């Protein structure tokens, strides 16, 4: 027993030394960054973003952690490199001037390499050592190893590579070495991964004509790490890895409520409305008023001085503003006052990850209390279902950790209207599910609304007819006939009858 306790405390005290990359998401899945003072192999085909990721590691090191860096380029010339990363907003010139980074292009001209007898790569080591000393570097990148492999003897390289890694360790630098992946081996020569302490692969896959970049940690000696493939994007602000954030469940739950903006709907939801920070799904067929319901919600949120982000994937913001004016919601005023922000993007423009990242970025900027996605189903056409589900889960988790209330609308096709709309499994991850339907009764279409589920509150089980008028959305009083829903005319008659009988 004592032994057990001893072991446990030992494990808890140990902390593997790591170097933060400063790359969003990557530090999460590596639980704190790359192994400190060791080398990480970054593998991937051409165009995967190896150079950019490596460069971002260095720049973040300089800017955030004040660790000078050395970049050894075997492929690109230094001035080309400076130019190339400028488009990512990295100003290498300034760091070069401040002696914070040292770039060196090592050119290997195969014509010049004529071998006669044994040799080693000591020249490279000397140059690397000089470069490290020049800026007192803590971070080093070698990009990419393949040039060496093309030109030198394989056996020699094998031992030299091992020597390089232990040499870098001695120099107390955290290094990234990039290389391309071969088909047969993890790396072209099938050797490097045995000696490296951490191996990360990058991948650029195309499914349904939309490309997705993914990152996976293949091995990480001495540390736990996320095992999955994580999507990442490269945009003008650099690299962004999108991990599943698993903290959501550990966060304390909120008991405060937020009104739905429709008085009668609040009544149905335990008389108080939604929970703050919960997720709400509005599903229904075309023309049932999903956008109107979400716009009403947005309106009421903004009216109470909170901030709302409306992500439109179907209609352009102007169109939504115009349309909502017809039901008495002046969204324009809210946009101008800054309490309502629109994000508009065509779903086919980019993949799901990019959409979510774009939204995430806006969230980080404007810090809204409520996010509305209208409709989520449009996004779902882009990519296989599994991807979408996991992506949505991640997104909802992310919003939960930020205590943001999220409302999705989902358009369902008429065929699948029966209580169990496909919804790609999103119904299980939402807290409140409201279904709107078009019911045809006596040659009259009637809009109806019901709360299918709402976690943690008593909610009405009634199917309520609702009206969309220039005064907004109102729910009709409950009138039950013998045969379920009534058409408008019949309802009026019934109302009359009820009145006369009482």
């Amino acid at each position, binding site marked *: 027993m004592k032994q057990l306790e001893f072991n446990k405390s030992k494990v808890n005290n140990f902390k593997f030394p790591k170097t933060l990359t400063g790359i969003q998401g990557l530090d999460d899945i590596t639980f704190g960054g790359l192994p400190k003072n060791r080398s990480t192999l970054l593998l991937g085909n051409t165009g995967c973003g190896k150079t950019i990721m490596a460069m971002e590691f260095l720049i973040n090191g300089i800017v955030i952690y004040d660790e000078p860096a050395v970049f050894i380029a075997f492929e690109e010339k230094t001035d080309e490199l400076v130019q190339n990363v400028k488009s990512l907003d990295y100003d290498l010139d300034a760091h070069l001037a401040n002696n914070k980074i040292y770039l060196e292009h090592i050119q*290997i001209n195969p014509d010049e390499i*004529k*071998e*006669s*007898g044994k*040799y080693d790569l000591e*020249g490279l080591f*000397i140059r690397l050592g000089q470069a490290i000393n020049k800026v007192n570097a803590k971070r080093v990148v070698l990009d990419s190893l393949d040039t060496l492999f093309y030109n030198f003897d394989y056996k020699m390289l094998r031992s030299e590579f091992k020597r390089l890694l232990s040499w870098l360790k001695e120099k107390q630098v955290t290094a990234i070495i990039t290389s391309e992946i071969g088909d047969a081996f993890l790396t072209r020569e099938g050797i490097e991964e045995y000696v490296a302490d951490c191996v990360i692969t990058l991948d650029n896959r195309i499914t349904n004509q939309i490309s997705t970049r993914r990152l996976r940690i293949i091995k990480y000696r001495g540390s736990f790490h996320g095992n999955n493939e994580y999507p990442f994007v490269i945009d003008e602000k650099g690299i962004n890895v999108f991990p599943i954030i698993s903290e959501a469940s550990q966060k304390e739950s909120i008991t405060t409520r937020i009104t739905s903006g429709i008085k009668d709907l609040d009544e149905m939801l335990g008389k108080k409305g939604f929970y703050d920070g919960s997720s709400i799904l509005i599903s229904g067929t075309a023309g049932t008023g999903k956008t109107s319901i979400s716009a009403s919600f947005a309106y009421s949120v903004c009216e109470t001085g909170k901030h709302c982000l409306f992500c439109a994937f179907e209609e352009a913001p102007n169109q939504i503003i115009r349309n909502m004016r017809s039901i008495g919601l002046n969204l324009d005023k809210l946009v101008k006052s800054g309490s309502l922000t629109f994000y508009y993007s065509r779903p086919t423009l980019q993949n799901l990850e990019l959409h979510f990242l774009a939204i995430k970025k806006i969230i980080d900027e404007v810090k809204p209390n409520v996010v509305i996605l209208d409709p989520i189903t449009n996004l779902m056409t882009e990519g296989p279902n599994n991807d979408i589900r996991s992506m949505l889960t991640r997104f909802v988790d992310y919003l939960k950790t930020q205590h943001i209330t999220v409302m999705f609308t989902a358009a369902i096709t008429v065929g699948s209207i029966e209580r169990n709309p496909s919804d790609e499994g999103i119904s299980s991850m939402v807290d409140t599910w409201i279904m709107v339907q078009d019911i045809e009764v006596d040659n009259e279409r009637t809009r109806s609304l019901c709360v299918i589920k709402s976690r943690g509150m008593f909610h009405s089980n009634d199917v309520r007819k609702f009206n969309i008028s220039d005064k907004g959305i109102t729910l009709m009083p409950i009138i039950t006939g013998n045969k379920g829903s009534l058409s408008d005319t019949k309802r009026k008659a019934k109302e009359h009858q009820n009145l006369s009988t009482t």
Partner: protein
Amino acid sequence: MLNKKKIDTKFNVESNLAGKEKYILRLFITGILPNSVRAVKNIKTICEQYLKGRYDLEIIDIYQQPSLAFTEDIIAVPVLIKKFPLPEERMIGDLSNIKNVLKELDLV
């Protein structure tokens, strides 16, 4: 080793020597690592045997003068650079394959 050298001399064409051009050679080494020591020994032998009196050999230890590794763009060591006669040529290794070295130096 000795045998090999003898064979090499057979191939040696006298007319090449008639050029009487002066060779400028630079050998870059790293201290007393085995490859470097061998390279020094080999190049000295070759020079004495084939370029007697018309060569300028400079042996540079890049441990002592690391900046030269940059200016001469050196990665693999030992490396022999023939500065003259033009064109400039490079050869990496301990120069144990004398036949190759001679061919590279245009002495065959």
